C-alpha cells in the first residue's frame, strides 16, 4: 500500500497526460466527422506539450528567468532552476501545431467544396462510386 502510494505520488502527472492523450486519440479514430478528428489531433498535441513541460520540473526549483547582477557576481546552481530545455522545444511544437491546424482547415474547406459534406463515410462512398 505504501509502495503504491509512493508510485502514485511520483508518477501521477504522467498518468493524467496519458489520459488526455487517449481522449484525443479516441477522437481521432472513433469519430466520423473530419473536423472532430482535427480537434482530436489538437488535443493530442496539447497533451504531449504539457507532458514535456511537466517532465522538466525540479523539486523546489525556480523559473528560468534570473537576476543578471546576482548571477554575474555569484553564479547560479543548476539544481535550483527548472530545466529550460523542454520549454524551448515546446515553443516550436506549439507553432507546428498551429501551422498544421491552419493547413488542415484549408484542405477541409476544399474537401467540402468538392464533395459537399464533411462526414467520412459519405465522402468514402462518393469516392468509391
Amino acid at each position, binding site marked *: 500500500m505504501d509502495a503504491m502510494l509512493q508510485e502514485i505520488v511520483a508518477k*501521477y502527472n504522467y*498518468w493524467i497526460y496519458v489520459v488526455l492523450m487517449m481522449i484525443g486519440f*479516441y477522437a481521432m479514430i472513433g469519430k466520423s466527422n473530419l473536423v472532430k478528428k482535427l480537434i482530436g489531433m489538437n488535443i493530442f498535441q496539447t497533451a504531449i506539450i504539457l507532458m514535456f513541460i511537466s517532465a522538466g520540473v525540479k523539486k523546489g526549483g525556480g523559473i528560468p528567468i534570473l537576476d543578471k547582477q546576482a548571477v554575474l557576481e555569484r553564479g547560479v546552481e*543548476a539544481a535550483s532552476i527548472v*530545466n529550460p530545455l523542454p520549454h524551448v522545444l515546446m515553443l516550436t511544437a506549439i507553432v507546428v501545431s498551429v501551422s498544421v491546424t491552419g493547413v488542415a482547415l484549408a484542405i477541409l*474547406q476544399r474537401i467540402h467544396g468538392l464533395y459537399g459534406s464533411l462526414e467520412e463515410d459519405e465522402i468514402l462512398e462518393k469516392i468509391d462510386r
Partner: protein
Amino acid sequence: MKKRALLSTLFTGALLLYGTGDFPPWGDPNAPAARHVSPLYIEKSVEDTHVPNIVTAVLADYRGYDTMFETIVIFCAGVVVVSALRRPDA
C-alpha cells in the same frame, strides 16, 4: 467501428501507463533530461549572452538554427493556405 476504436484506445492507454513505470519520479533533479546539456545552458547563458531569460537565450542563440527553420515552417504554412484556397477571379 466505435467499439473497435474504444478497445484500441484502451489498449494503447494501458501500454503507455505500463511504460510510465520506467520514467524518473516527478521533480527529480537527477533525471536524465536535466543532466547533459541543460546544466551547461543554465550556468553559462547569462555570462555568455547577458540575457536574463534563459529560455529566450537558448531559443534564439544556442538553438537559433531550429528557430530559423521554425519561422520557415510557419511561412510555408501561410503559403500553402494561400495556394490552396485563393482562386484567380474568373
